[in-house]
């Protein structure tokens, strides 16, 4: 009996303590007590992280959750707000999520700038009806069943993000209301990408929408602060792809960014800030990111280097490369670490890419053509150098030679054309450009510059002769004047 009394006393004591401290929402949150009986949202709320952390319904809806009198609990005097609408929703969330001390009270270390980021984002700026912004917190996180982002049940868990974003972004009708030109096939493309396929298989590590676009602070791709703005793309991709630890298990290299950064493309984009230069997505695609296959490499490069690709396709190399299953452009130029195409790549020297396949004993025709092509371009370089030296010399001597200097630009143009024409791998076509256009200009410039230099010396000698003649004439005149004056003096005396 003593035991029964003691047990009953203990139960009452604990129940009393619980009521006084309000630690269990079921017992203290009178909203929940009633709404649980109604089912629906209360059932969802049971799984909600807020419920588990002790946040009552009143935390978002207002009112007095301790009162079991519905009229009193949901009265305006008790601060009842009802169902938040429009931008009020996010403000209600920010009421706690913006305050560090509040978050710490519930044992959370989440950042407190989500609303700030959201307001600055494309979602926080645009509005379809002019009254409220497109996205509120609950659009992505749900309302009553909010769980941690690490919880696979969360709509913003990596595996679920594509579908969460796709709810709007794959909805053509909805997207039309504020950005009709924006594609709505991102999720479909994503599912064809390596990232998307791995994500679909349940791997949360590969990139999903938020990995590249960010989460709360998503900005338009043209916004320079966007993670996917042209200049920022390589760094965004490299966050994962340069992290050897993160990429372990995927069996792909992690030096792409390092190679790209020193490549001709990387320098143009990252150093010169030329947004027309290709970033990762230019070759790999963005939402449908995938490594281009052997056959499609020339097509990918050809989107920018169209003439080179055309010339290559109609050259004898096309068939040979196809037969050997060699990646077309990549075989000579590599992929991420593409260096500026110098003449060292041409010919049969140790740095020449031609000699990879053509030697004096193997594929000899190509060997001799490469050797000849290199000799043409070397001649043009030497000739251009000489022309420039002579022009500079003439200029320093004060000769007017700007027209020749301007004309010499054509030689440089011929060299640029030669870089393209080399992809025809035709000696004659290459010769037509280098010799026909380039060397003819440099030769004419050399002649004109030499004439200018000769003219300079002719002027000096001419001056010497004319000064001599005029001086002699002056001296003769002086003597004549003296003679006259002498005669006049004699006459007078």
């Amino acid at each position: 009996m003593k035991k029964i009394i003691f047990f009953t006393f203990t139960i009452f004591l604990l129940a009393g303590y619980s009521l006084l401290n309000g630690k269990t929402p079921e017992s203290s949150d009178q909203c929940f007590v009633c709404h649980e009986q109604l089912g629906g949202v209360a059932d969802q709320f049971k799984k909600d992280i807020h419920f588990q952390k002790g946040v009552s319904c009143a935390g978002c809806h207002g009112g007095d959750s301790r009162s079991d009198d519905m009229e009193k609990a949901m009265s305006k005097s008790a601060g009842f707000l009802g169902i938040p609408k429009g931008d009020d929703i996010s403000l209600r969330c920010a009421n706690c999520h913006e305050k560090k001390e509040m978050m710490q009270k519930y044992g959370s270390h989440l950042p407190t700038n989500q609303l700030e980021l959201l307001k600055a984002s494309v979602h926080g700026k645009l509005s379809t009806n002019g009254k409220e912004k497109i996205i509120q917190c609950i659009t992505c996180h749900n309302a009553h069943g909010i769980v941690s982002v690490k919880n696979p049940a969360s709509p913003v868990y990596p595996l679920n993000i594509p579908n969460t974003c796709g709810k709007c972004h794959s909805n053509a009708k909805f997207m039309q209301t504020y950005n009709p030109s924006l594609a709505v096939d991102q999720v479909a493309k994503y599912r064809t990408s390596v990232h998307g396929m791995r994500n679909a298989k349940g791997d949360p590590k590969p990139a999903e929408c938020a990995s590249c676009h960010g989460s709360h602070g998503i900005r338009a791709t043209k916004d320079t602060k966007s993670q996917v703005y042209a200049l920022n793309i390589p760094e965004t991709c490299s966050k994962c792809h340069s992290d050897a630890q993160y990429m372990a298990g995927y069996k792909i290299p992690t030096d792409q960014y390092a190679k790209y950064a020193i490549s001709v493309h990387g320098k143009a984009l990252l150093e010169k800030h030329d947004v027309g230069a290709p970033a990762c997505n230019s070759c790999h695609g963005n939402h449908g990111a995938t490594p281009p296959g052997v056959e499609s490499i020339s097509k990918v490069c050809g989107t920018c280097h169209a003439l080179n690709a055309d010339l290559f396709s109609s050259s004898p190399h096309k068939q040979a490369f196809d037969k050997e299953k060699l990646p077309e452009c990549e075989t000579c130029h590599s992929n991420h670490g593409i260096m500026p195409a110098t003449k060292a790549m041409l010919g049969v020297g140790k740095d020449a890419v031609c000699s990879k396949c053509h030697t004096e004993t193997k594929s000899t025709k190509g060997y001799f053509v490469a050797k000849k092509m290199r000799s043409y371009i070397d001649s043009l370089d030497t000739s251009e150098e000489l022309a420039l030296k002579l022009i500079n010399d003439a200029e320093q001597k004060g000769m007017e030679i700007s027209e020749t200097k301007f004309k010499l630009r054509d030689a440089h143009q011929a060299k640029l054309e030669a870089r393209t024409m080399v992809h025809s791998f035709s000696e004659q076509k290459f010769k037509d450009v280098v010799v026909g256009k380039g060397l003819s200009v440099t030769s004419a410039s050399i002649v004109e510059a030499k004439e200018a230099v000769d003219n300079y010396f002719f002027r000096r000698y001419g001056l010497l002769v004319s000064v001599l003649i005029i001086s002699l004439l002056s001296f003769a005149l002086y003597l004549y004047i003296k003679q006259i004056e002498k005669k006049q003096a004699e006459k007078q005396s």
Partner: protein
Amino acid sequence: MKKLFKDAYDYLDERFHLEDLVHFMGKKYVPVHSHSIWYYFGGVSLFFFIVQVVTGILLLFYYKAGPDLAFESIQYIMSKVQFGWLIRSIHGWAANLFILAAVIHMFSVYFEKAYRKPRELTWITGMLMLFLGMGFGFSGYLLPWNELAFFATKVGSDIAGAVPIVGEPIKILMRGGPDVTGATLSRLFGFHVALFPGIFTVMLGIHLLLIQRQGISEPMHFAHLPQKEKKTMPFFPNFILRDLLLWLMMLNLLAILAVFFPAELGHKADAFGSAPAGIKPEWYFLFMFQSLKYLPAHILFIEGEVLGILLFGAAFALWLIVPFWDRKTARGEQNKLITYIGIFVIMFIIVLTILGWVV
């Protein structure tokens, strides 16, 4: 050879009575004294003017006025036309030397008080020719249509535009519109090759005619000398041959300057380009340009620059009419004030020009 010359002379004399002219010139005498050297600068100025006319006509054969052609045509003259570089360089140097010789000539006449009665009109025509010479310089400067010329014309016409009331119409007249454009080039080309040479020729004709009619001015102290102490030399052939000797030396100087310091061309004018750093006017405008820079933004109720322009205008006007207000010299008395004013003006011009050059 001697007979050939004599035959030619006789042929011309028979028709034009050259003997009268030779007799007239033979009777003319040039005073000889310690400042006789300054008499030659009139002739030197004339020589440079003749050089300008000859080289200017030669340049006209190839020069094409117009914003699309001017620069290119000068480029062509400098690089392709036989001796085109020499003609243009001589034209440029002779222009500067003409102004220099004319300024020296003007100051020598001023200090010798040779403007006094009865040579007032000779002075006026001479001064007007000097102003026209500056006008030649200003209008010719734009013709190559290069960057420097474009902005110098812009600045120069802006300064002219700052003159109250008449400034703006003068600026529009100079530019052929509100801005320096192709219309300005056509206009200044017209001034340079037709209007100014026409007026200049008339002035020069009057100036030379008056000199021949009135003779060379004697220094003031000659009036107190007995006739036999007045040293002179015959105008023909002595003075003319000495003049010719100086002309030959000037020709040598021109050739040396043209070869060692040929005229530059620079970059083609671009109305949308920025003005080249350190832009300065021609040296003979530099003292005025520099003076205007030193003036404060406002002096009493008037803008500093406007006041400066008005003061320069007044000074030039007073200088032009000096024979009429220098009554003391007209009476044959020494006027030291005129000399002091002249020294001050020369010092002012030299100092401000140097400052404009180095600052």
